[in-house]
């Protein structure tokens, strides 16, 4: 291997160390080479070229032209862009906390020793098996204002249901309801966490005279807080990127009246319908910064409410 020392000549300790270093490095890199190649070509290079494109005007057909901050300036006065931010925040602020509360409630319920536990777990997970395109079509049908299931049920109790996906005031709520249908994944995570809570903690709390609520707040919740953090972060990041369901129910338009024009949908329209690749790249970078900031904030504040120490 070495250029200067022949195979028969004794290697100095240092040279041997160096050789070992390079051999182990080569071996390690060889094993991770699929990822490394993918990382360099499909992550790192696109990451920086996306930043570059965000400062250009680029429509694929003619070469990218440097325009500095123009894309970012244009975004600030783009009413559809602002609407897409508003829609995405609205969706996130309602869907994520609702999802966490629902998941915790269902997990607590099923943590009781009840028959049919296996069946429950299966049925909880089942909505996650359904492809998003099928999910969106199914709920579009359930939300059908005239002949849909939901409004028919509401009519039974004397309520005239809204037009759901056809009404700009209800369309986002409808999509939030659809999202809650997939809460089963979080429930399974929480169930696993609940089963890990040491029993003696509850017994100790009982001796101290804790009631059901006390035990939940002072024992259960702190013990499952790492999972709650995980669900919250992934929930926020996912809702920043909500796309398929909104695309299907609005035919790719984000209607009615831009009410389901979420950030990712508008980005897709700009990039792949109008071929404003530079503009869309600027949007992608702002999204990246938003995800970064939110993640940092959640992590920083989580020190106050997440308990990792189990002693």
């Amino acid at each position, binding site marked *: 291997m070495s250029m200067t020392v022949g195979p028969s000549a004794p290697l100095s300790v240092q040279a041997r160390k160096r050789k070992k270093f390079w051999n*182990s490095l080569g071996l390690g*890199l060889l094993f*991770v080479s699929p990822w490394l190649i993918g990382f360099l070509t499909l992550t790192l290079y696109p990451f920086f070229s996306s930043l570059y494109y965000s400062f250009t005007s680029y429509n*694929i057909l003619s070469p990218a032209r440097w325009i500095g901050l123009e894309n970012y300036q244009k975004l600030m006065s783009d009413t559809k862009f602002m609407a897409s931010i508003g829609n995405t925040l609205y969706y996130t602020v309602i869907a994520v906390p609702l999802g966490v509360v629902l998941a915790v409630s269902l997990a607590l319920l099923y943590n009781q020793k009840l028959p049919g536990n296996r069946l429950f777990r299966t049925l909880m*997970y089942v909505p996650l098996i359904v492809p998003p395109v099928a999910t969106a079509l*199914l709920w579009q049908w359930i939300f059908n204002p005239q002949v849909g299931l939901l409004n028919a049920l509401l009519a039974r109790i004397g309520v005239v249901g809204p037009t759901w996906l056809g009404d700009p005031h209800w369309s986002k709520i409808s999509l939030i309801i659809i999202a809650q249908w997939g809460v089963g994944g979080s429930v399974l995570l929480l169930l696993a966490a609940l089963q890990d809570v040491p029993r003696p903690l509850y017994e100790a709390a009982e001796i101290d005279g804790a009631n059901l609520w006390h035990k939940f707040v002072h024992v259960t919740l702190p013990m499952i807080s790492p999972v709650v953090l995980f669900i919250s972060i992934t929930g926020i990041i996912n809702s920043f990127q909500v796309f398929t369901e909104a695309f299907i129910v609005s035919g790719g338009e984000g209607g009615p009246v831009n009410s389901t024009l979420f950030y990712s949908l508008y980005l897709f329209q700009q*990039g792949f319908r109008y071929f404003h690749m530079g503009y869309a790249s600027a949007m992608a970078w702002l*999204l*990246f910064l938003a995800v970064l900031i939110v993640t940092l904030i959640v992590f920083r504040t989580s020190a106050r409410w997440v308990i990792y120490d189990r002693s």
Partner: protein
Amino acid sequence: MTVAEQLPQTVQVPPARRQKIVSSALAFVVTLAVTLFAFPLYWMVVTALKGDAEIFQSPPGMVPHPAIWSNFERALSQIPFWSYVRNSLLYAVLSATGACFSGAMVAYGFSKVRWPGREVLFFVVLITMLLPYQVTMIPTYLIFRSIGWTGTLLPLIVPAFLGNAYFIFLMRQFIRTLPDELSDSARIDGCSEWRIFTAIVLPLIKPALAVVFLNQFLNAWKDFLGPLLYLNDPSQYTLSLGLQQFQSANGQEWALLMACATIFTIPLFVLFFFTQRYFVEGVTFTGIKS
């Protein structure tokens, strides 16, 4: 911990009966919750079996009579179903194979092989999980376009062979639970690193391989954005894209749409039914043990 303690103490019921009331109340709530999650699917199948008149009947009937099984045949005849299935299968099976191959090999490199810089690079793997796909989406599209891969399944399949951060993480967690003595003693016996990986480690991580294979299969089968970006010829469409196109053309044909959605979902159900252990393990495994 039980709801029993919440019942007002003034109600005088014998403990045994009280216990019974509580458990049936719980069972009721549980049944209700499960129904809420399962019912939409029931509704999908029921609608798929309804005739046109019944579809628009108000209030809607909970059971179709008669069940129009020919809706399924009609749905299949209106879309090139088998071509979609073939493309979806190609995408799902090949990318799942790629995910297993790259996931296991890379995870082995990040867990059992000792080399300088390992921890730093693994940290980079974790970081990439936070990167929204929109950031790399446009340049990645341009790369695949410039090498002429748009309009084929390649941009959907090949990246799976180059490793997915989530699967690498999952596999590494799994491989780390294997004792080091196993690979160390093989090394002393003069086993090459590659042989340790293929002959000792791979057979031991079959459950993890199953988790990765099934998850990627499911991801690919469900994927809509990928096919939307890269496929433009109807003969290349996967089921996701085909169904969406069918919907834009036949927006009000609810029975046919639900029939298509049902057929689209059934293969995943069959898969899930036989392998649900792995799905549930995958969820709990990656979410908690970090």
